[in-house]
């Protein structure tokens, strides 16, 4: 530890202004502050600060995602690991390149994007596609808008949407049947060449034809689907952890799930043969994963608490409508994208109401 600190001290002049590698300064600073707490001190009141910083904030999301990662490795095999690594590398390269060009610090946001992105892909996605999708998501979804904090869309969803439109076959027709034994597919490396493991349909595709998978499989996650989205139980574990740390806002999650459940209950009451029960839809597909980990992204969701309710209701309702009344089987991705587009407008509406209330103060 001391040695490492001395090493940083030794090489720091190279990265300082006028040094040989001064253009790589953002990378050096990121590394130094990764290992050692920043040395900055307060110059104005308040003279002490809360221990939470953005690194910790993003770490909480990563911890929340770990149960899903564990479940996905169990159900879909070891191939999940290289997918995550490739995604991190692609996202990281784009992020670092932009930080160097802009001469700004490297923001920690890509640590979350890089992990969420592979979790919303089918398990057979080729690695080059993962790389392109993640790079595209970080580039178009975030950097073009000015970097972390200024993006309109959730970068992971932009990347996923790009892949879904650019390579529709790879994204929707080839799924992996999860392992049903005790060890699952824990020790297997499943690619699209493993014919016995490949299936062409997920529960949502079956549902289009009125075939509803047993709900207990949906809760456990032993169904074909996107890598991290299948195991409702594990998503709930990680998601509730996130809500408890106040990193994800409970209003968004609650409003998505409740609005989807209410709408689906009504549809189910009208025609139980065509429309699945509410709980089935909540655990199917990416509904839970999207509600807990993607819609709650604070940057791309409305910044006001009232706005979060509207945003959540919008996403929940649109998802159910797309799933039941359109050609697409899964609606969560488009619903969140639409929610992201609506977020600034929702915010403006909340602001105007609040300003009217504040005017009398």
């Amino acid at each position, binding site marked *: *530890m001391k040695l490492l*600190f001395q090493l940083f001290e030794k090489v720091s002049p190279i990265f300082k202004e006028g040094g040989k590698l001064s253009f790589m300064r953002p990378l050096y600073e990121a590394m130094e*502050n*990764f*290992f*050692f*707490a*920043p*040395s*900055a*001190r*307060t*110059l*104005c*009141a*308040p*003279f*002490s*600060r*809360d*221990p*939470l*910083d*953005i*690194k*910790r*904030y993003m*770490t*909480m999301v990563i911890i929340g995602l770990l149960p899903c990662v564990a479940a996905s490795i169990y159900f879909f095999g070891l191939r999940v690991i290289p997918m995550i690594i490739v995604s991190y590398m692609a996202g990281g390269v784009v992020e670092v390149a932009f930080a160097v060009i802009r001469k700004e*610090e490297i*923001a*920690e*946001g890509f640590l979350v994007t890089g992990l969420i992105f592979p979790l919303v892909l089918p398990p057979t996605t080729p690695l080059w596609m993962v790389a392109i999708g993640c790079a595209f998501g970080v580039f178009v979804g975030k950097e073009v808008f000015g*970097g*972390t*904090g*200024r993006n309109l869309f959730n970068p992971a969803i932009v990347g996923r949407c790009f892949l879904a439109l650019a390579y529709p076959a790879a994204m929707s027709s080839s799924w992996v049947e999860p392992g049903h034994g005790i060890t699952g597919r824990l020790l297997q490396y499943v690619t699209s060449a493993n014919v016995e493991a490949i299936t062409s349909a997920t529960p949502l595709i079956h549902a289009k034809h009125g075939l509803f998978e047993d709900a207990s499989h949906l809760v456990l996650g032993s169904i074909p689907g996107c890598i991290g989205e299948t195991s409702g139980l594990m998503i709930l574990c990680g998601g509730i952890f996130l809500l*408890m*740390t*106040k*990193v994800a*806002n409970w209003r968004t999650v609650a409003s998505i799930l409740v609005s989807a459940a209410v709408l689906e209950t009504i549809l189910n009451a009208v025609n139980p043969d065509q429309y699945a029960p509410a709980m089935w839809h909540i655990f199917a597909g990416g509904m839970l994963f999207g509600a807990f980990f993607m819609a709650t992204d*604070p*940057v791309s*969701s409305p*910044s*006001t*608490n009232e706005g979060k309710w509207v945003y959540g209701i919008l996403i929940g309702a649109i998802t159910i409508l797309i799933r039941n009344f359109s050609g697409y089987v899964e609606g969560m991705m488009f619903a969140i994208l639409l929610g992201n587009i609506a977020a600034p407008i929702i915010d403006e509406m909340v*602001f105007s109401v*609040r*300003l009217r209330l*504040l005017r009398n*103060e």
Partner: protein
Amino acid sequence: MRFRGGYNIKFDGKPDGLLKDVKRSEILYLPLKSRSFDFSTVCVDHGQRVGLGEVLAKDSNHYDVPLLSPSCGVVNLEKTPGHITLEDLSAGDVKSYTYQDDQEHIHKNVGSASLKRKLLNLGAWEFVKDAYTDRMPDPLSTPQAVIVSTVQLEPFLVRGDVLLKESLRQFTRGLEHLQSLLEYQPMYLAFPKITSDFAAKIKEQIRGYAWVKLIEVPLKYPYDNFEILSRHIGLKRSQGSIWGVNVEGVLAIDNALTSSKPCVERIISVAGPGASQPVHLRLTAGYPISAIKEAYSLENTITINGGMLTGRLLEDDDKGVPAECRGITFIPEHLSREFLGWVRPGFDRQSYSASFMSSLCSLFPERVTNAIRGELRPCVSCGFCEDVCPAGIMPHRLHKLIYQDDIDAVEQFRIDLCVECGLCSFVCPSKIELMQQFKDMKQTILKEKEIAAAEAAKEAAKKAAESQVDTE
């Protein structure tokens, strides 16, 4: 308005109930600038011998509020820049002081005006603050209401109960004096929402005063802020000034009006995580800070005038305790850099979010340093600042509007309601200096308004001159 937002930060180093007298100092450094006053009109000469309670300087911009000599001694104007130094101190006795008002016979019939003048001359008026502007109100004006607060919630400042325990009788007498200055305007007494024997005793005492309205305040920072209190009561800014007085002020008013003595003694807190022994001290303005530091501070600390959240840094140039000082806070300097601190479980950290293991155990005081504890990042709209804001405004939104330099929108989003409590800056995970930005922006808006007003006046004068020419 209901009380909203707020956050109690638990820190180590709060002063206990002890009240100590300080050692007499050989020399006093009276700063000419304090938080809201600028005593630029010096009334004494270099080398002049002054008595206790004599006026050393005045602030001509604030109704000639005087800087009183806390002791007998010889004035030295050249020793330290920005200060009046008093040397060769001889034991001045407050008891021997007699207040002389040469104009008293003229004002005798006016009643409250003469009392208010007396308060100003004896240095008690500077404890009265306007709730909305936080400035000293015009001593000859009448407010729409008076708020007396016994609550003090900012970490490390003098606790109201310590003062009250010392002098409950003086406090109630001071309330009577305060009431005599008013003409049937309501008086509110902000009282902590607690049940203790002492609180019951005070309530019993106050019950006799029909003209005092009791408001119970939950013990959450910064509900003791006068602006928050007046908005809670429903007093509108447009309907006249609101006087805010805390316990110290009531005691000063009692001291000035009952015994006609100058208010030169004050009680301040010396505390904070960098204090070796957090206490309350009874001293006079101008007491050397170095002496306090030597006696009560640990090594490698920064010194702050005021509380930790709203105070100001005292530099080496500041030699003496300023006139309005309510407490001195010591905070250890951030020296060692923690290895991989952001992935540690964090049993020893107290955070507004629940991102550390410590949130599983009950709240505990944390020993902190002046580290920013993170790197500056763009706002991610996490909403913590809005959650803690007691004024009901949106700090994250204001921050973005200030970034865009959209002053009209900043005003529309009511930056003027900000009470500068510092909680938004404290909780921000992106480490944005929100409070400082708002303070600067308020100054900019004020300046622009002044310029606009001056221009409008010029225009009006021009028009008047033109119309005069026309009529001629």
